[in-house]
């Protein structure tokens, strides 16, 4: 056969194969691009939800109350849906198209979580996305005559309800380390009065800050940019840190006396005992030491790798997974009512993601079932709210050296933070605060005019001090104790 004929036959055979493979490759590339696009839009939408929640709670004095908290969550959820539908180019009524592909949205808060998922509404006889009842991070412990339910929070505050040694108890409080000592503090912040920024000493008492006016020797509260004098006679030094230490010490001693024998092996969650939970969820096992008793070596309550902290994170992880499975399984049974033909599943989250969820206020969104070319989209995004007013840890406190003029604010372990007169405030207190004067006028001011340190705040890659000085330890203990006492007592 002539070479030209062979060439023509070769081209006739190979050309269709090339065209088909080329089309297949292009479709695969388009599928990957679409998945990456959805990932980006989902992340942006969850970030908007977290931001909305952050802004609403920071400017809401009643955010810890349930009704107000629910309203903040609903608003945040609406921000998520609006952001997602706008990003996907289907705003307005388009949310009814996107919502069925969101089987669950989890809001993990300070002492529990909400799940926002489709539920059967008996009034309308339809499936609507609704906020399910609040679920606390609770676990049951049963040993001998002790049968208690312990509710955890994101910090060291716990609530104990049940019978201990046959006696009914209902107590709550902070677990404090044996070496923690606190002192009285002199606290100051700026207020915007008649357009001027003025610094005042304050103490926190009766659920509100009381400021001292030195010229008139009177105390006042700050309402809508005005001073409202209270006629009280208070001490200039704030004693919240001392009150925290006293209350927490009394509670910790009671726990030490009554719950000295409770270990990880005594846990029961949703009817499952320790062995079943360990096999199913891969929690930290092996330790037979008591959970609630301080041990300088391996159970420091403020340490994230202590027995208490790791067990608490396991409890949060197990409870969220149990509720999520139930929620998505229920949705699966009824998803055809929302015109979705897809088998929704609970994805396996990595340990790093569980770490982020169980140690922060966060929002996790699951999106499944969206067609994307060759594949069906199935992904989730978790965004943590690392700047919030609901609880305090070492990571959201910043410190100033009061003896330094125009001092910058630092993290406690920043080597540039020096001095013997150090005080700490929440990170959010260094950001702009808003003051609504009227419906048309909003002013902004800074409670502290210190600027952030470039070594540890603006750029986080600094060499952290591993051994803090006594002054810094004292400042940290005072700030943590004060902020926690202001939240709870």
């Amino acid at each position, binding site marked *: 056969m002539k070479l030209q004929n062979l060439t023509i036959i070769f081209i006739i055979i190979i050309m269709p194969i090339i065209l088909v493979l080329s089309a297949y490759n292009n479709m695969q590339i388009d599928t990957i691009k679409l998945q990456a696009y959805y990932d980006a839009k989902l992340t942006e939408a969850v*970030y908007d939800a977290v931001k909305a929640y952050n802004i609403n709670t920071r400017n809401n004095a009643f955010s810890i109350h349930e009704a107000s908290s629910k309203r903040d969550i609903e608003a945040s959820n609406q921000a998520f849906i609006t952001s997602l539908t706008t990003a996907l180019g289907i705003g307005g009524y388009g949310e009814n198209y996107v919502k069925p592909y969101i089987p669950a949205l989890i809001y993990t808060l300070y002492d529990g979580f909400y799940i926002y998922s489709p539920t059967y509404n008996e009034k309308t006889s339809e499936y609507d996305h609704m906020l399910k009842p609040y679920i606390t991070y609770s676990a049951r412990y049963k040993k001998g005559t002790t049968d208690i339910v312990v509710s955890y929070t994101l910090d060291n505050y716990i609530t104990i309800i049940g019978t201990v040694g046959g006696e009914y108890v209902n107590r709550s409080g902070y677990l404090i380390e044996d070496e923690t000592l606190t002192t009285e503090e002199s606290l100051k912040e700026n207020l915007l009065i008649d357009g001027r920024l003025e610094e005042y000493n304050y103490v926190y008492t009766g659920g509100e800050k009381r400021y001292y006016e030195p010229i008139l020797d009177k105390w006042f509260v700050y309402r809508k940019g005005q001073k409202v004098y209270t006629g009280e006679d208070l001490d200039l030094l704030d004693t919240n840190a001392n009150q925290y230490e006293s209350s927490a010490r009394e509670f910790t001693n009671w726990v030490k006396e009554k719950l000295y024998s409770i270990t990880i092996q005594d846990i029961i969650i949703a009817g499952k005992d320790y062995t079943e939970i360990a096999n199913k969820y891969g929690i930290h096992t092996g330790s037979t030491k008591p959970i609630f008793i301080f041990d300088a070596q391996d159970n420091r309550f403020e340490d994230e790798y202590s027995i208490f902290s790791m067990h608490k994170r396991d409890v949060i992880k197990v409870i969220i997974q149990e509720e999520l499975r139930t929620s998505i399984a229920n949705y699966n049974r009824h998803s055809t009512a929302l015109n979705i033909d897809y088998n929704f599943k609970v994805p396996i989250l990595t340990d790093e993601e569980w770490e982020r969820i169980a140690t922060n206020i966060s929002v996790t969104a699951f999106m499944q079932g969206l067609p994307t070319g060759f594949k069906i989209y199935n992904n989730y995004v978790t965004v943590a709210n*690392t700047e919030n007013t609901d609880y305090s840890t070492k990571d959201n406190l910043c410190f100033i050296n009061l003896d330094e003029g125009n001092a910058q604010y630092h993290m406690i372990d920043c080597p540039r933070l020096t001095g013997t007169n150090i005080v700490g405030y929440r990170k959010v207190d260094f950001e702009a605060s808003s003051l609504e004067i009227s419906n048309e006028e909003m002013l902004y*001011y800074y409670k502290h*005019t210190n600027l*952030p340190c470039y070594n540890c705040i603006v*750029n*986080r*890659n600094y060499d952290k001090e591993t051994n803090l000085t006594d002054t810094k330890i004292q400042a940290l203990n005072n700030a943590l104790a004060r902020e926690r006492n202001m939240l709870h007592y």
Partner: protein
Amino acid sequence: MQTLNATGNTFDVEVELKILDENLSSKVGQASSSKIGENVYYSVYTSQMEDILNSKGKYILKEGDIISVTAKNTNTTISQMLKNFFYAVTGNTSYQIAGQDSAMITANGK
């Protein structure tokens, strides 16, 4: 990087980090209660980031920072050779396999 290396090709990866600096907006806001100042970003490039990665093993970013990554294939595949031949004929520049994306950090690192 492991996923890229698994393809058997070599890639030139450039990273640009834009670090959020809120000092300027703070200064503006402190001077005037009716204004909100704008934030400023300063850039950290690949070699600067690599110094920190080599010494500490990680580079910590905070909420609001932006990371931008560009990966270019430094091998020349057969497909690229063919394409470049046709591009040269038509007078266009050469074709290179590259990918680029950027995103904002949504939570403070530890």
